[in-house]
């Protein structure tokens, strides 16, 4: 049960509280026991309490407190965006966001699609049942 994800310079984290909720940020320095200096391509570099961050598996290779340009290049090189969007955690978040943004008509169409799929599944199942029973 040892720890696998460490707070280190270059660790990518997800903000789970506050104004930047849901954003991916990079830890660029550690301020003290509780706080990190954190940066992302579209925000001003600032401090955040570790309690506001959830560490991910992704790290990038940066020097301590890099310039914004260097940070962006390093993120491109490590392909953070695609790695995140293809990870199961990232995909789940995307699906959650999509579900939350469905409008009433979309929810209706979703219901129709679910019923249709269930019908197809049930047909196959009944076919299988017939095959095994016969």
């Amino acid at each position: 049960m040892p720890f696998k994800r460490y707070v280190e310079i270059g660790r990518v984290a997800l903000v789970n509280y506050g104004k930047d909720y849901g954003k991916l940020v990079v830890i660029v320095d550690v301020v003290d026991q509780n706080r990190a200096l954190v940066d992302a391509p579209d925000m001003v570099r600032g401090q955040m309490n570790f309690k506001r961050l959830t560490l991910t598996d992704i790290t990038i290779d940066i020097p301590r407190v890099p310039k914004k340009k260097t940070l962006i290049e390093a993120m491109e090189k490590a392909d953070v965006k695609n790695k995140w969007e293809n990870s199961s955690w990232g995909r789940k978040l995307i699906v959650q966001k999509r579900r939350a943004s469905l409008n009433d008509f979309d929810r209706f169409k979703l219901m129709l699609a679910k019923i249709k799929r269930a019908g197809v599944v049930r047909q196959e199942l009944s076919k299988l049942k017939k095959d095994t029973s016969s």
Partner: protein
Amino acid sequence: MAAKRKTPVKTRNPDLVRGVGKYSRSKMYHKRGLWAIKAKNGGVFPRHDPKPKSPATAEKPPKFYPAEDVKKPLLNKRKPKPTKLRASITPGTVLILLAGRFMGKRVVFLKQLTSGLLLVTGPFKINGVPLRRVNQSYVIATSTKVDISGVNVEKFDDKYFSKEDKKKLPEEKKENQKAVDAALIKSIEGVPDLKAYLAARFSLKSGMKPHELVF
């Protein structure tokens, strides 16, 4: 009151700074043309004598005085403003009715009447809601819009909905319903699943949180 001009005149003396006009007193006298008015009147500014007042008829003393002084109620000059239509409601929006006989039905918004109520139709063939008036407060506006360009709603107003004959629905109203719905149904059938959507009622299911739902 002197006759009002059709368009108000711009001030002849624009402000240079607040409190200081561009033109001096003598220049303004000239600009206003008071010299021309005087010239027309022979060097003297025209003066009109006050109109003679018609003699007031002698008021007869009233036969009855109230025991206490009766207060006159204050004058109320308030004019109610026209009901503001929510920005999310535009012609063709699908609305969810929240109260009344058709509660939960999804209907198409046609226009806002002068009384502030919304004119709405099922369409009747799809969900049984006729041309009807509905209050904005009892409605959720969804973001789904139907193309309403082929529909003529000019002739419907609040008077159309006054009920004199409560027993029978006149043929004319049925014809109007059919005319409005014909164009609407065509544009509705152009969108897949929209007809079934309008035919179904809205209800809150388990786990649906209205304050988190996007409509």
